[in-house]
């Protein structure tokens, strides 16, 4: 039915495409609507500075959501990403600033730790949910070791990035988010590695029969999640100007919501980088909108919860109509 409608309009898309892209497209519409409402209430956001201001807190969330998207594309869920990103900020704000060599080693070690976690999940058939949950205690503890109280300072080059103004009055956060998303999209959708990730999520037996190694693939996927987590932590350090392991524990679940809004599935096999970006920006912009509406900050979580339900309900209705 949906393809019939599209044919009528004149498009001729691959069969699965509409089903895959529709949820992300609907989320994109929600995102644009929220942005328009924000712009109507406060026209000053339509400038490079204004957009930078409202978008910069979302960058780290968007990249962390990419990490969660990669995780969900192989059929796993990461319940430790919030504390992992927090831990990275503490490393960036101390080690990387004072002794860059050691800092880089620490960051590489974190990525390696993620890959090892992937090996544990695969070799011992441990549910990813609980393995990453256990790891989240470790991230929290390590972060507290590095910085018992929030503090430290971002390295100078990060400060430069924070005040960077790209030409053509494009807001810097948008550039960062789009580049990160494009890279993730390329790796997950246009490389052999991405095909392996997705087949690990949708049909591991097929992956094995085609000569791929389940353990190596899962380790590579977890390593990718680790790299994206590190990038998210670096951008977050630029945003908050220091390190704090408890900065964003909420990311853990918000990123899952972002991926779902973007059209991802818990069963794996689906990598939706651009949809996830739309999902993350929608969730991030909600906070801006609620602040602009002068809503008590206590009520903000409730409105966020209702809007997540509303968007997904809207998707259900649209899917029923197009079927």
């Amino acid at each position, binding site marked *: 039915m949906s393809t019939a409608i599209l044919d009528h309009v004149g498009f001729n898309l691959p069969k699965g495409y509409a089903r895959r892209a529709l949820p992300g497209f609907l989320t994109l519409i929600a995102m644009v609507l929220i942005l328009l409402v924000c712009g109507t209430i406060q026209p000053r956001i339509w400038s490079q500075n204004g957009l930078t201001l409202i978008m910069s807190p979302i960058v780290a969330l968007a990249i962390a959501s990419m990490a969660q998207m990669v995780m969900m594309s192989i*059929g796993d*869920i990461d*319940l430790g990403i919030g504390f992992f990103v927090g831990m990275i900020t503490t490393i960036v704000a101390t080690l990387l600033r004072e002794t860059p060599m050691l800092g880089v080693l620490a960051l590489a070690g974190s990525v390696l730790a993620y890959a090892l976690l992937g090996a*544990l999940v*695969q*070799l*011992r*058939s*441990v*549910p990813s*949910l*609980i*393995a990453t*949950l*256990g*790891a*989240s*205690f*470790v*991230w*929290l*503890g*390590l*972060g*507290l*070791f590095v910085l*018992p109280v929030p503090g430290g300072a971002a390295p100078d080059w990060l400060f430069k990035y924070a005040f960077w103004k790209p030409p053509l009055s494009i807001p810097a956060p948008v550039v960062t988010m789009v580049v990160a998303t494009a890279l993730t999209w390329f790796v997950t959708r246009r490389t052999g590695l991405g095909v392996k990730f997705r087949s690990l999520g*949708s*049909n*591991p*037996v097929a992956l*094995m029969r085609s000569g791929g190694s*389940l353990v190596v693939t899962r380790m590579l996927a977890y390593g990718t999640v680790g790299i994206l987590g590190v990038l998210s932590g670096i951008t977050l350090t630029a945003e908050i100007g220091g390190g704090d392991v408890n900065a964003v524990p909420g990311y853990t*679940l918000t990123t*899952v*919501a972002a991926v*779902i809004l973007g059209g991802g*599935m*818990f*069963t794996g096999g689906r990598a939706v980088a651009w949809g996830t970006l739309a999902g993350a920006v929608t969730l991030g912009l909600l906070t801006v909108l609620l602040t602009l509406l002068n809503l*008590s900050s*206590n*009520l*903000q*979580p*409730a*409105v*966020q*919860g*209702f809007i*997540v*339900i509303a968007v*997904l*309900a809207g998707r*259900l209705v649209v899917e029923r109509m197009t079927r």
Partner: protein
Amino acid sequence: MIKLRNHSIPPWTWSFLAAVIVLVLTYMVSGRGGSQTITLAFTVAPYLVLVGLGQMLVMSAGPGNIDVSVAKVFSLGGLVAIAVGDVTGSWVLGLGASVGVGLAMASISVVSILYVRIPPIVATLATSLIASAISLTLAKGFQGSADPVLKSFLSWAPFGIPAFAIVVLLFTILVSLILKKTTWGSQMLAFGQARRAAEYAGVNAKETIVIVYLTSGVLAALAGALRASFSAPNVELGNDYLLDSIAVVVIGGTLMSGGRAVPAGVWGGALFFILLDGLLNLIGWSYAGQNVLKGFLVLAVLFLASGAPILSRRVSQPTTDAGNDEDEAEPEIKSLS
């Protein structure tokens, strides 16, 4: 050897073994035995057990089912119980109110899961956001303290055995019996093992989902109310209970993929976690070190106790072992999300 492994030890063994090891270590470190450590553990553990039992029921209802709203519902239950108890002067009404709040919050999850078809983790996340907003609003200028009668009951420990722990223990046995002996229990577990097969066999999917999530919500809110009466209500009272409840349930031997519920294991897991906190406090580890060790222990228990055998039988069954598992589980998950 293989035969022994197949008949195998009960799934809750590992959690109790871990708890006993920690207990022995505690005795060795403190240099004296005595029931005080155990009494303390049994005073604190029941709250985690109550939340854990709810989480266990939810997880047993099949892959993808999880309740991430327990932490916020816990805090909200505490605040509501104390507030209502303070206004009406009756702690019974306070507890009743917390049960009501738990039901209301869980209903949001249930409606989202069944009618909006949102995956449970996102649905309960939305519920958790709503509960947290209500808690924050309630907590503004909150005053009120727990009823002294209830408070003294919760810390009452005749002969070193906390009375409240006995109550929760009886409740655990009740849950265990319901799962083993009643039709509903078998239906729920069958539903968790193979959703579609169970539905063809006449199991009511909606009813199962409704009951497990409502139970989880009520237990979380009630545990929160009791915990708040034991110490003091607080918006952040429940925060630790989300990760801990999931961890103790899985350490206790309940399968995350559903279909096997181990109520006894929840006790083992909870005692393990609480004794471990006590031990680490005793030897003066910082909060940071405690978390690192806790994390590594969870991973270690997973490594030892998880599904795949360590001395693998894969030699006889070539590598398709792991793949087949996931393959079989796949259609079930698909129908859920």
